[in-house]
């Protein structure tokens, strides 16, 4: 059998499914650019050596963690979305006689390609904007420095390492998902639909606790400089809290609206509430706004 067939099929798939791959690549690229910018600004801060520089870099280091965790969430979400939309196609491959390990190989190449391109574009974008970010930072602190375009090699290597491993995990996850499915399910996969999830009270309570604890920590610290670790914990708590609260809250709200028949069967409202999974999309905006 032709060795490059999977490679060709993968490239062909990406070309023909532009509309699904583009958002995936875009979100990966954006996260990569953000990550690199943080790293690079951090390095430049340390090198410039101004008053409070070490504290600044400590904060940036924590921001890096948050950005990393967030990247994993975003990339996993868009990947899941991508996979779901293509269930029928993959099922058809299986019915027409492609073994699962071969489908897995196609998925592998697809991720390698989109991942590779988004790494390239993300890093380039990051390089362009990192200097700008640093200048804005200095301007905010009313400091001046000579303008010099620098590329952080260690930053590039570190970004490459982190995101390559995220993509690797994505590949493993896709293969695991593929193993569990049979062709009939794959073919019907896109028509199975999403079952309406149950309201999980425990999530809602946990969410409220996390969120209020997070904001409480953030507000009550007197000296932000000495409280950086606390601040970090607060950010994590808020992320977790928002996630949990949205997950349970959106479902509870929709259930409540559904009870009100007059509202539920209104023509426009009826369309809006179908999109349960979109809550994660809103979540992203919430957290990004916070940051």
């Amino acid at each position, binding site marked *: 059998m032709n060795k490059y067939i999977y490679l060709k099929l993968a490239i062909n798939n990406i070309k023909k499914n532009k509309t699904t791959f583009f958002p995936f690549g875009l979100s990966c690229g954006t996260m990569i650019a953000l990550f690199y910018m943080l790293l690079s600004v951090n390095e430049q801060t340390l090198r410039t050596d101004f008053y409070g520089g070490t504290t600044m870099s400590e904060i940036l280091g924590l921001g890096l963690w948050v950005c990393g965790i967030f990247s994993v969430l975003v990339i996993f979400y868009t990947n899941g979305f991508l996979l779901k939309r293509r269930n029928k196609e993959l099922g058809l491959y299986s019915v*027409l*006689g*492609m073994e699962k390990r071969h489908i897995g190989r196609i998925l592998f190449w697809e991720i390698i390609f989109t991942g590779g391109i988004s790494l390239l574009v993300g890093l380039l974008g990051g390089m362009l904007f990192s200097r700008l970010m640093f200048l804005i930072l200095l301007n905010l602190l009313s400091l001046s420095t000579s303008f010099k375009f620098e590329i952080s090699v260690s930053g590039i290597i570190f970004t490459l390492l982190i995101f390559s491993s995220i993509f690797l995990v994505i590949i493993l996850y896709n293969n695991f998902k593929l193993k569990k499915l049979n062709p009939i399910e794959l073919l019907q996969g896109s028509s199975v639909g999403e079952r309406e999830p149950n309201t999980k009270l425990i999530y809602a309570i946990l969410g409220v606790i996390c969120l209020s604890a997070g904001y409480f920590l953030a507000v009550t610290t007197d000296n932000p400089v000495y409280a950086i670790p606390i601040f970090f914990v607060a950010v994590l708590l808020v992320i977790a809290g928002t996630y949990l609260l949205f997950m349970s809250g959106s479902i509870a709200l929709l259930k409540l609206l559904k009870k009100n028949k007059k509202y539920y069967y209104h023509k426009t409202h009826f369309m809006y509430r179908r999109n349960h999974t979109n809550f994660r999309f809103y979540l992203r905006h919430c957290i990004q706004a916070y940051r």
Partner: protein
Amino acid sequence: MPLLKVNNLKKVYTTRFGGNKVTALKNISFSVEQGEYAAIMGESGSGKTTLLNILASMDRPTSGEVFLNGENTVSINENALARFRREHLGFVFQDFNLLDTFSIEDNIYLPLVLAGKEYKEMNEKLEPVAAKLGIDHILKKYPYEVSGGQKQRTAIARAIITNPDILLADEPTGALDSKSAGELLDTFSNIHEEGQTILMVTHSVRAASHAGRVLFIKDGEIYHQIYRGNMTNDEMYLKISNTLTVLLAGGDLHE
């Protein structure tokens, strides 16, 4: 030796919780000879799609055997199954299952591409098949640009371009208007006359009346079967609908 032989097939579905058992198929035994055009008829929920899925090696029976060319497909392991499907089976679905992102031509090529064939060989195979099915003028178009009948003929082209031992069709006229359905059934008759073995699952009397033999399935069991003999399509139609009337009335019909 028959091409396809089914022995005592049984399929029991167990719901995920509760352990509620539903018997979808029981005591199914029949065989299909080389070059035959057989139809399986039944109401919705009679188990005909389950049967076809098992024959297509996409689902496994609870017990029983399916022999294709003397090979027991039930015992083939999962990894070899895909290859088995590729080499021996052709599928036509009710809702076409064409990929919208591929042109008609690419859709037909798909099984050959998956089998790793050379382009020259694929192209040589495409021309006669496309001409026979009357889709040679729309090869460059996309599925959303052509009619339902043309889509289904594309699906047939995709199924027979690999020269399968048996063509399995699941309600192939289900999504078509009556004119396209008629044309499609003629297409099936034509490729059958050229020697293609066909097994069709349907609940349309008209579709079944084109077949050489009709098996009736009810509540998961083969209930009755009629042979065409020398009957015309119209006579066959009448015979099938009479049989269905008796079946639906709940009468016991055992010859």
